[in-house]
């Protein structure tokens, strides 16, 4: 059982590593430079997958939260919490790489466009999620409150996006892809998305494992107190 576990983990890490190398090769060697915006466009191949992963992460938190409130099994809470944590790390990256990309292309660090603003609001919601978990008076309460925020926060995403989109209609996609996505560009993007998704899965397994260890420590402490 344990050996199987390690094997699966090993395969996943191997796969993730290979995909990452392939992704880097494609981004820096294989794919041709985009004509209009130049070399800086290569941020796209990492920025978009990172954004995709953060969205995926919050979706997993949403599902995990529902399952936890329904089944009351610690494992669902561990998955939901781990995924939110990874999601916050990746959203932070979106919020940092976005401006680094925007500055040379648009000449400004930040624009209140729908995607950036939605990411910022998401980041705030899930930072609050992690805060509530750490400030709850006991772990079981933290898990329950987290689940409620994981659900209530996620259904906000489409509404925030829609609202902000109507509020400031500036679509960076039209500026960046005047020529559209060519086949090599699309291939590169796909490989990068695959690489980051595998990385996400690895990180969540790792982080959820720590949650299980924390629960184990609580159980052992109780046993010791007997």
């Amino acid at each position: 059982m344990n050996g199987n576990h390690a094997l699966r983990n090993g395969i996943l890490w191997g796969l993730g590593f290979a995909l990452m190398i392939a992704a880097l090769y494609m981004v820096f060697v294989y794919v041709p430079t985009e004509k209009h915006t130049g070399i800086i466009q290569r941020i796209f191949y990492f920025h978009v997958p990172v954004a995709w992963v953060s969205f995926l992460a919050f979706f997993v938190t949403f599902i995990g939260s529902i399952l936890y409130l329904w089944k009351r099994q610690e494992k669902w809470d561990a998955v939901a919490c781990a995924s939110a944590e990874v999601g916050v790390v990746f959203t932070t990256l979106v919020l940092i790489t976005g401006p680094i990309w925007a500055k040379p292309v648009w000449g400004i660090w930040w624009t209140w466009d729908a995607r950036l603003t939605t990411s910022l609001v998401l980041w705030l919601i899930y930072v609050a999620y992690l805060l509530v978990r750490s400030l709850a008076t006991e772990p079981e309460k933290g898990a329950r409150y987290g689940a409620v925020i994981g659900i209530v926060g996620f259904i906000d995403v489409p509404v925030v996006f829609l609202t902000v989109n109507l509020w400031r209609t500036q679509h960076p996609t039209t500026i960046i892809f005047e020529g559209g996505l060519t086949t090599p560009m699309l291939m590169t993007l796909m490989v990068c998305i695959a690489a980051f998704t595998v990385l996400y899965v690895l990180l969540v397994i790792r982080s959820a494992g720590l949650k299980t260890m924390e629960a184990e420590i609580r159980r052992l402490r109780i046993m010791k107190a007997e």
Partner: protein
Amino acid sequence: MNKAFTKIFVIFWKDMLMEFRTREIIISVLVFALLVLVIFSFAFGTGIDVTEMTAPGILWVALTFGGVIGLSRTFAVEKENSRLEGLMLCPVDRAVIYWGKLAGSFTFMLAVAVVVTPIFLALFNLPIFLPRLALVIVLALTGFAAVGTLFSALAVNTRARDIMLPILFLPVVVPVIVSAVKATAPVLAGAPWGDMLTWLQIMIAFDIIYLVAATLVFEFVVEE
């Protein structure tokens, strides 16, 4: 079903009665909201061109921050003397407790808005009688109360209860704030209904989504 409505009203009326006695929520929120108005008018100036740009934002910042202050009292009151346990012992669905407290929070915020808005309009030399603005206020405050009542119950059970509510509440109600500001601008400018329709629709959608979602998850916040 009928009984549930009666119980919702009983909880609501209890909150009204307490507020009649002390007026602590309405007075403190009102003073706070007015202070925000005054501070912002200093920060932005009040020339006619400036007013057009900033007035809707100033009104909604005042009502939003005032709202948070009021919402934080919603369940703090029930936490004192363990009254929430008394409520939880009652033979009612947890959703009934949510709706009863929601009705109270909404009414308090509405009462504050009814006083603050005319003062705001007068201070900025805008027309006072604006029935369409009333609609915007009702829709926005419904959204605030729907989210705020849920998070108020959650925040009182955490360690940093005073700061937790705004941290949770404000990012989630971003769509309401944006829509309320955007819908207020055409009203103040005397523009036709068409300009605010989309924003009203977003607020209606938000209100329905959060009233339903919060009704469903409220029990997980108050159970022990």
